[in-house]
């Protein structure tokens, strides 16, 4: 889909035109052929057509013909004029024409939003296709009257004869004729047990109802025709206006009736061969599209603007017109007077073809049509209808369209599968979870997975994975997807696209990951499902090859400095989620638990706890010696021995990953990636097991602390939060604590100050972030006099006091007063504090206020943040996934890009998007940090020397 971006509006337009031209050629050829063979073909293929009553039947076909003609030929106007019945006809024509205004609007639309417009056009095409097919169908099934027409007289007569007749019909008793036509058409249609079977009127009402749905926003009231129409209008705002002219230019040779019939035969044959049908359809679509759109639109306009009331009255008439095929008469029925009123001047302009969009139930019925291309086209049209239209999506569900589509996923023909999947993708998109549930209920997930396994076509794979991505945002579906799809997604997509090889051939270069759409979709899906709790994490961790492949992909991203894209973001998020609680959930984790009996954080006083944590590095050491001891301990720290290279979930917590995450933190400009990478370090450095200890030390050795501290300046709230919590976890390592206290305090305090008085408007940090920062300060100040001094030097006390005094947030106030309390507990500092004019009350009173809750709170909060706020992550995940989804809910494939853009700007996730853009701005500042951060960057690093291994010399 990314590729689509490239298409300029112009090129798309050009291609449409080209298609149109092709269509023209095709139609011409068709026509010729028809002349030659039409009779035979029809006979052969549709014996049933033969009999029927001449009068009524004929009239119908005639009308049909007429329609076609008008549509296709600009010349038709002329012919019309010549017609005897001219007055009425003319008016009608006018009605159609009415749209002159519309065209303009179309144009404007095009200019303003190219993408959107284009898309619409495409859809239109599809629609047209559907219509055509249908027509064909009808003819065969057709009512009695049809046969005669087929006979061929129509062919010969057609320029004048049919027209006349048609007109006559209209003029005479339009209602009766029409209704009949409708009925017959309905009959032909109803292959399936559709509600449509009901008499025409019934169906009418239904049909009307549908429209409103589409229009959703405009008219909530289904009954209201007026509203409905407008809605439709919106749906196809663009209309193939530009195309239309071409269509009009089409030669008169087009003969309606023949066309229809012929199409029948045609479509069958052509489709079966997989021939040019599509193309022609497209062409047609473009052309026709306008018509139907226009007619409807016109109506809508009229209704809305002038005579809503009138319209309503007219309604009843419509049903008759509703015949699936083109409805010549719409306009006529509507009421000539109206038309006339509208734009007399326009009358002369040109004829509008009148096609009618099939109603939703009809489209769904076509999904069961025996002819495969009809199914495919119906599904494609459905995809178009459902694009971002919640009302239609709901209707499709209510009409039980989802099981039909899911069933088509196993259809023998690839085209049908593809279209059905495309429709499902749009249907599965959105916050409304009912469709997702419905897809699950009819076995959609296994069907999609089957299709993914079977499909070699990249487009289908994109559609399937996109659909799964959409589905994966719905909580109850996550485990379903894991159950059915995890293996397939991993082995069919993640592993091959990641470049990871199970048994690397040492002679071949390692492959880089390919950031394909399929990979992006799949990783997004797994990202969503990875947030579904401990069981989901376990399943993903134990899925063979998944972690290895994700790591490989990320490493390759870092290697290529390509770390800003969505796939990387998804991968890091999965890794982050899988790293959560790894010290509790991984098989055999208890073997690595620290021997030190570290009681649950809440159970012991903070002092003692600190000491225990420090002891992680090898027992309790006298404080004075700690540093040197620590380093030595680190060097000699016994890592759990392993006989073979780590693989699978073990890779999650190997110290080697630290470098990867730090690289991402340094390189990436994607805030979500930054947050996830910091979150991964946060997760890994939590807990009391050997690996966490080692991770904490490794972050220091890899010079990760300056990287993290620098990110405290990030403009993105969630990044600051994740980094703050990570720093807090890291400071469980005594040496880290000292370093962080010395060099990160200024940044932390600055964030506190920002909480109070934002430097920029809207720079106020969220409550969670402020609390996280305060907790981190508390952590590093606890049990460290030096760090408490740093806090004083960083002028943190005034900031904290101000926060406790003025803050609206109870949680922030509590956290801040907790820090103050700790500071005051250092008797050594009281003198300095008092010199600055602070009194005990400042520290104690606030503390006292919150004391009660705090006793309970502080341990809790400690736990929470140490073991990285899972819930937080989950929430974030959810949000993320939803904001991810928008990208996936694409309309017709090629044109998705535009949509996406539009969507973003529109979407509720606006903030996220804009922030993504901003990074570009802010990033430079990050990469070339102001003096502040750069200073720590030098010093925050552990004393070197031990970082560098002794020179190695190996014999070979």
């Amino acid at each position, binding site marked *: 889909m990314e590729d689509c971006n490239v298409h300029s509006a112009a090129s798309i337009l050009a291609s449409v035109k080209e298609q149109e031209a092709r269509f023209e050629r095709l139609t011409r050829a068709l026509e010729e052929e028809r002349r030659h063979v039409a009779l035979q073909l029809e006979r052969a293929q549709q014996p049933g057509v033969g009999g029927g009553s001449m009068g009524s039947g004929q009239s119908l076909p005639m009308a049909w013909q007429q329609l076609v003609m008008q549509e296709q030929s600009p010349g038709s106007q002329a012919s019309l004029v010549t017609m005897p019945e001219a007055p009425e006809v003319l008016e009608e024509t006018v009605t159609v024409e009415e749209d002159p205004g519309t065209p303009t609007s179309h144009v404007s639309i095009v200019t303003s939003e190219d993408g959107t417009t284009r898309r619409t056009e495409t859809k239109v095409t599809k629609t047209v296709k559907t219509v055509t097919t249908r027509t064909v169908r009808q003819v065969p099934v057709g009512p009695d009257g049809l046969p005669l027409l087929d006979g061929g007289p129509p062919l010969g007569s057609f320029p004048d004869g049919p027209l006349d007749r048609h007109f006559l019909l209209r003029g005479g008793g339009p209602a009766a004729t029409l209704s009949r036509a409708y009925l017959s058409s309905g009959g032909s249609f109803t292959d399936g047990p559709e509600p449509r079977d009901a008499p025409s009127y019934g169906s009418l009402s239904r049909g009307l109802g549908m429209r409103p749905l589409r229009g959703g926003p405009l008219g909530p009231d289904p009954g209201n025709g007026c509203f409905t129409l407008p809605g439709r209008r919106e749906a196809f705002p663009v209309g193939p206006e530009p195309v239309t002219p071409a269509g009009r230019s089409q030669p008169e040779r087009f003969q309606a009736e023949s066309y229809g019939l012929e199409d029948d035969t045609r479509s069958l044959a052509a489709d079966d061969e997989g021939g040019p049908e599509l193309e022609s359809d497209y062409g047609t679509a473009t052309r026709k599209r306008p018509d139907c759109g226009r007619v409807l639109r016109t109506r809508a306009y009229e209704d809305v603007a002038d005579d809503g009331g009138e319209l309503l009255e007219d309604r009843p008439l419509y049903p008759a017109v509703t015949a699936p095929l083109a409805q010549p008469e719409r306009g006529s029925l509507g009421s000539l007077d109206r038309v006339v009123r509208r734009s007399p001047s326009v009358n002369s302009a040109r004829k509008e073809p009148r096609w009618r969009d099939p109603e939703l139930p009809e489209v769904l019925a076509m999904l069961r049509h025996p002819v495969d291309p009809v199914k495919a086209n119906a599904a494609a049209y459905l995809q178009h209808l459902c694009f971002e239209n919640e009302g239609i999506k709901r209707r499709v569900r209510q009409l039980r369209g989802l099981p039909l589509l899911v069933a088509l996923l196993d259809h023998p023909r690839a085209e049908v599968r593809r279209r059905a999947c495309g429709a499902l993708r749009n249907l599965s998109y959105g916050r409304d979870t009912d469709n997702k549930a419905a897809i699950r209920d009819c076995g959609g997930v296994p069907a999609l997975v089957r299709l993914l396994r079977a499909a070699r076509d990249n487009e289908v794979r994109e559609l399937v994975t996109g659909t799964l991505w959409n589905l994966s945002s719905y909580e109850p579906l996550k485990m379903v997807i894991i159950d059915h799809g995890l293996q397939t997604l991993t082995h069919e997509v993640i592993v091959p696209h990641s470049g990871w090889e199970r048994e690397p051939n*040492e*002679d071949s270069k390692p492959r880089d990951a390919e950031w394909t759409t399929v990979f992006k979709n799949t990783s997004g899906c797994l990202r969503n499902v990875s947030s579904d709790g401990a069981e989901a994490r376990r399943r993903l961790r134990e899925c063979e090859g998944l972690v290895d492949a994700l790591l490989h992909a990320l490493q390759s991203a870092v290697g290529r400095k390509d770390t800003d894209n969505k796939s990387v973001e998804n991968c890091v998020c999965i890794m982050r989620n899988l790293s959560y609680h790894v010290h509790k959930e991984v098989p055999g984790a208890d073997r690595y638990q620290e021997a030190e009996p570290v009681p649950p954080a809440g159970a012991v006083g903070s002092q003692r706890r600190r000491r225990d944590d420090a002891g992680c590095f090898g027992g309790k050491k006298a404080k004075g010696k700690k540093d040197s001891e620590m380093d030595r301990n680190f060097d000699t720290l016994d890592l759990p021995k392993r006989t073979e290279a780590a693989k699978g979930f073990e890779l999650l917590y190997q110290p080697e990953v630290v470098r990867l995450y730090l690289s991402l933190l340094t390189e990436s400009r994607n805030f979500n990636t930054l947050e996830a990478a910091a979150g991964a370090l946060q997760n890994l450095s939590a807990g009391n097991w050997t690996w966490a200890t080692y991770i904490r030390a490794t972050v220091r050795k890899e010079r990760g602390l300056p990287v993290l501290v620098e990110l405290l300046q990030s403009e993105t709230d969630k990044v600051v939060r994740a980094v703050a919590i990570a720093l807090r976890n890291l400071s469980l390592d005594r040496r880290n604590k000292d370093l962080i206290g010395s060099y990160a305090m200024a940044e932390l305090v600055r964030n506190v100050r920002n909480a109070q008085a934002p430097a920029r408007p809207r720079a106020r940090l969220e409550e969670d972030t402020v609390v996280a920062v305060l907790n981190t300060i508390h952590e590093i100040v606890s049990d460290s006099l030096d760090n408490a001094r740093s806090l004083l030097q960083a002028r943190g006390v005034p900031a904290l006091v101000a926060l406790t005094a003025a803050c609206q947030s109870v949680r922030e106030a509590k956290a801040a007063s907790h820090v103050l309390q700790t500071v005051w507990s250092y008797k050594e500092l009281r003198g300095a504090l008092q010199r600055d004019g602070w009194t005990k009350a400042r520290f104690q009173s606030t503390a006292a206020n919150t004391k009660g809750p705090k006793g309970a709170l502080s341990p809790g909060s400690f736990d929470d943040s140490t073991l990285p706020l899972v819930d937080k992550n989950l929430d974030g995940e959810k949000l993320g996934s939803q904001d991810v989804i928008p990208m996936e809910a694409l309309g017709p494939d090629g044109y998705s890009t535009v949509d996406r853009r539009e969507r973003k700007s529109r979407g509720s996730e606006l903030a996220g998007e804009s922030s993504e853009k901003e990074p570009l701005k802010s990033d430079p500042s990050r990469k070339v940090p102001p003096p502040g951060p750069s200073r720590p960057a030098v010093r925050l690093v552990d004393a070197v020397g031990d970082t*560098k*291994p002794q*020179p*190695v010399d*190996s*014999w*070979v």
Partner: protein
Amino acid sequence: MSYIPGQPVTAVVQRVEIHKLRQGENLILGFSIGGGIDQDPSQNPFSEDKTDKGIYVTRISEGGPAEIAGLQIGDKIMQVNGWDMTMVTHDQARKRLTKRSEEVVRLLVTRQSLQKAVQQSMLS
């Protein structure tokens, strides 16, 4: 021989083809290497530029395959069988050289004397 990371390097190189010698189960080349991007380049006694993290030949066993092939102490290995050796870790280089499946390794090496010789010939 100093270069800027990311910039193409121009160096005068010599091809050295070493046939490994089988010793028991092992195939040996008869030299040792130092350096690599994970090593401290300042401790490399052979490099002119003390930030050069390339792979250098540090020792050569007498009468071994490497000596026979003409490899010299202090040579900087640029490629092994076509694989770049200027941006690899020490271990990666070692593995690349000691593949059991390969009886022959073809090295591209550069050394100061080579550079000088070329420069002189160009001057004269």
